[in-house]
């Protein structure tokens, strides 16, 4: 019940991040995996903003800006790839995308 300290935000960020990791590891749907990655990025953004606020520096905001941009670009390309793969394999089960086996 005290003032919100930065630790709370960081904890929240950690929890969200972990959930994102779990999503990456546990879900088989490739789209879901992407989304979990997005969640991880968002959690990192939260931590960055929290720190920026804590120290009064807006460098953290800039970093977040970049992260968002890169994430967007990554999602675009990644989903495009996914679509292409789906076209050939008719499946987006990442367990079936095992070309790197062995």
């Amino acid at each position, binding site marked *: 019940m005290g003032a919100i300290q930065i630790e709370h935000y960081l904890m929240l960020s950690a929890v969200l991040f972990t959930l994102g*990791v779990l999503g*990456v*590891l546990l879900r088989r749907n490739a789209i879901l995996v992407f989304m979990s990655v997005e969640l991880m990025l968002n959690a990192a953004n939260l931590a960055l903003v929290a720190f920026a606020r804590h120290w009064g520096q807006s460098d953290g905001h800039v970093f977040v800006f970049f992260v968002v941009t890169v994430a967007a670009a990554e999602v675009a390309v990644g989903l495009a790839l996914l679509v292409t793969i789906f076209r050939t394999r008719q499946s987006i089960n990442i*367990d079936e995308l*095992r070309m790197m086996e*062995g």
Partner: protein
Amino acid sequence: MVTFLDWAPLVILFPLLGFIANLFGGARLGRRYAGWLATGAAALAFVVSLLLLVALRENGYQAHLQDFPLLGHWFDIPTANLRIGWQLRVDTLSVTMMLVVTGVGSLIHLYAIGYMTGDSAFVRFFAYLNLFLVFMLVLVSANNFLMMFVGWEGVGLCSYLLIGFWWDQRGGEGWRNSNAARKAFIVNRVGDFGLLMAMFLIFWQFGTLDFYAPTEVANVAWASGATHHSADDHATDDGHAADANEDEHEAADDHTDSPASDAHGESGAPAVHTTNEHLATHERGVFGQAEALIAGELPVRAFAGVRLSAEGLVTLITLFLLLGAIGKSAQIPLFVWLPDAMAGPTPVSALIHAATMVTAGVYMMVRADVLFYEAAVTSFVVAIIGAATALTAGFIALGQWDIKRVLAYSTISQLGFMVAAVGVGAYVAAMFHLVTHAFFKALLFLGSGSVIHGVEHGHHHVHDAHGVHEGESTSHHEDGFDPQDMRNMGGLAARMPLTYLTYLIGTLALAGVFPLAGFWSKDEILADAWRLGIEKAELSGYLTLGLLLAAAAMTAFYMWRQVELVFHGRARSEAAAAAPESAYTMTVPLLILAVASVLGGMLNAPHGVLGLDRLFGAHSLTNFLEATVRHAHAGSFVFWLAALALGLAVLAILSARSIYGQGRGVSETGEDALQANGNLISWFWQLANRRLFWDEFYECVFLRPYQALARFFAQTIDWDFWHNYVHDDVLRAGFNAAGGFLARPVDMGLVDGAVNGVARLIQSLSARLRRTQSGYVRAYALALFLGTLLIVILMLLPLAGSGG
């Protein structure tokens, strides 16, 4: 001025060429030519020897040293002061020997052509014969001890090769022959040890092995003209007195005009020295320095801290030399090889073991007369050994059945005469007897060969009626017939007249019957022995004389026994009845040698006996040898002693005739006439027949322990211990065990295991690791996450520690 003396190397070269030609080209030459080639080589050597004789005569009997062409020095080490060269010494003594060797040698070569026809190894035989001549001539023409030793060993080698010539005979005969060859070689070796020790001592003391330095005079007294035994010199006793004067005159350095010195001084040739004054003591040869040593001018060198007196050193040297002579010349106690050496072909026995090789010891002692003359103790020993040998061998000879064995023991006996002569200081007498003995002993051996040949022929003629197996060893036949056994002979006088005649001459010459050669030479020895006893009152003289007389009687006895058994009476076997006379190649040498045996005595005819000296010249040999032999003296003729000896010989012959004559020699049971009595004489005869058990004694005392020791070393130590245990069990098994250990547990187990294990480990690891490459992205992501977690933890750990 080139004289025949420069041709001296040819005397060695011709037989050497013959040897090489027969060795390499003999097979192609064929038997016919090989034999004649060898004989030709020997004859050429004889011709060269004659030329050398002529040249020496012209040279005034001065010694000539000739370097061997193409060969320089054998040893030439200036820092060690060691210079030993290949120098030929052409002087009267060596030329004497050369003539005997090559003359008798070529006759025997001729004989051997006939004797060895049909033998499969014909060519090899003549190669070996020529090789023997080479070595023998090296021996007699050497100017230093080492070169003489080369010849010494070389003739020993050839003796070995030739005794064991039929080493490949079947039925154990080959073993018998090779055993005999080995025995000869090894027994000779014992003697050679003595010669080597003498050489070491000589070199130690005198610093050189040369007999004489190039310009050295061997016999100063003779060179300076103090002694000449010319026709007008009534010198029998005076000769000896003159000898005594010589010794005094020598010290006074008396230069008299001698014809020798005159002749050369005028003609512009290099000045002939009559003394050795121009040479410092250390520049002289062995004998020159020895004289100085004896005269006290040369100090004795200490050997290993021991300094002997001059006489002691000389005695030691001469004792060692004597040992060498004992070995080579078959004296007691090293004579046992000579009878066994009869296993070789008869020409070999004739040449080597009668005429030449065995006389090398005598020659060597005569060469070293300077030393022997001064060593009284040694001379005594020499005389006793010689006389004892003469008697012992003579005794054994009368109990032998084998025709060649009788002659072998006879040879030993006669060698004993020569050695005894050296012992009593009669150097010329020894050489004289050497020469005459060569004649008649070679004659006897060749004759026996002819007899054996004939009996063989007869045997084959009677029994086989197919091709005659000529030339093979005749001692063993499948049916046990021994053609050398005198019991199978008899009555051959009629069948082989020429052989009989020449054999008779040889026998009488050997027995010392007047006027044949042996009479004169034997008598000279006896006279000198008597002289030594009478005039110098030495015990050795009397002793020697007695023993030698007994031996002479024995000689006559057993030789006549042999004649009776072989030629007289009736043939005791069919073979003997059918024996033919031998071919002319065999009989011609017999005739020649017979003539030599008759006339040989005139080589050294004593002065004033029957006027023979006017016909043949008195003391020719003595004069001849005097130039070289320092202590040569003219032998005297003691009439009563000669008569005594002759009488003893005649008595012996007559008694032999009575015992063995008319075919009584052998009883029906094959026993000897003397054997049959059953009394003391029979016992003695048995003893003689068993050769005094000498070989058995040696076998017992020396051979058996030695062989046991050798067997022990060979079997137990070498074979059982070293080979089986150390080598096989320890080394090989150990090595194999170690190798096996290294190979199996270590290499295959550890190393391979490690290597393979590593491979297997990697394979299993990789198999396990491969499973991580599942291709599942999620698994990779998990791995990433785990890694990140780990890194985070590691990063935060230090902070956790400090920050709390």
